[in-house]
């Protein structure tokens, strides 16, 4: 849980805040969890992630951008290819991600693990915003077809 929040927020204190909030939310909403809709793991991860994204996109945004630049985007362990290699072979998402071109796979994983917006990805990678949007959209469509 903390690992997911740290990937997004890059700061331990804020990540702990996100995990704390998420934990209480999991506790409060346990009754509304519907096993027919998906696994408990995905449900819990979603709560942590959404809380971290809200913090990132709320009050913390300006703070983080300052911190974020000098650190660069390739934190140890956060390299997109490393993430793919750590994924379970038993699941089709890994196989489907591997079918994408390397640069598109990187875009998807950067966006997801760091909670970046289209605009931020465009800024980081020096690509036009429209290109980023359409690459991601097309990658998601390919993933959907592959996963179907």
């Amino acid at each position, binding site marked *: 849980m903390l690992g997911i929040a740290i990937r997004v927020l890059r700061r331990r204190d804020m990540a702990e805040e996100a995990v704390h909030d998420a934990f209480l939310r999991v506790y409060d909403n346990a009754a509304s969890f519907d096993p027919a809709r998906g*696994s408990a793991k995905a449900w819990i991860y979603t709560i942590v992630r959404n809380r971290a994204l809200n913090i990132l996109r709320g009050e913390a945004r300006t703070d983080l951008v300052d911190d974020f630049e000098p650190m660069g985007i390739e934190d140890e362990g956060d390299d997109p290819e490393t993430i793919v290699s750590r994924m379970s072979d038993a699941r089709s998402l890994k196989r489907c991600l591997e079918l994408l071109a390397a640069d598109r796979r990187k875009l998807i994983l950067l*966006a997801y693990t760091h909670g970046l917006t289209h605009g931020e990805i465009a800024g980081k990678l020096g690509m036009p915003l429209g290109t980023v949007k359409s690459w991601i959209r097309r990658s998601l469509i390919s993933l959907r077809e592959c996963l179907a």
Partner: protein
Amino acid sequence: MSNAMTSEDKDLLAAEFAMGLAEGEDAIRAERLLREDDEFARHYARWRERLSEVDATAPAQPASDMLWARIESGLPTAQPVRSTQRAATPSFAEKFAQLWDSLSFWRPAGLVAAMASLVLAIGLGFSMREAARQPVLVAVLMTDANQPGAIVNVHADGRAELVPLGDIPVPAGRALQIWTLWDRVRGPVSVGLSRSARRLDLDVKALPRTIPTQLFEITLEPEAGSPTGRPTGPILMKGNATTAL
């Protein structure tokens, strides 16, 4: 315009929303659809399920004492710990047991098990500092009433320990015996015996390394242990090992 959305449009928006990439009007529309549109909600849930594979690659991070304390104080844990032997300062296991008591209304067994490994992942900071150990497998032993009664933690170095989540009444002259079933042909093997519910290191050295789905159970036996080497008394609780999240 949202009225004209095809199923594919909805699926794509659900994917972007699950990625955290929906912005502005798209995000507002996605939030509305999530509440109002069953098909969209199903698409979204499916993408969350798929993408949780990426979340699962995040390295485990030890949490600070402060985080654990804050989580604990934020939960409604009014009832005292029902442990018979209390250490001078509350140990991780006791804090865990206390938290667990307040969570015991969680019915779906899958959720209980997921929460267990989640709590253990958070509590990792404690165990790492206390004994440099990290559970790699967790078995949540459930009673007949489908309540979590104890946890078996299996550590990376192969050691296993039993952590009761509350008191287990033991009649005079009787004892709790812990068994594991790693080989159906050989049958259950005793890995521990205790007169009361307490934290216990399990004797698994002579056995092959514990594997996922391996069964652990506790039965009520004579004080000196089962005379036959096999469980003879009633099963109080049992559960299978699963990988810690």
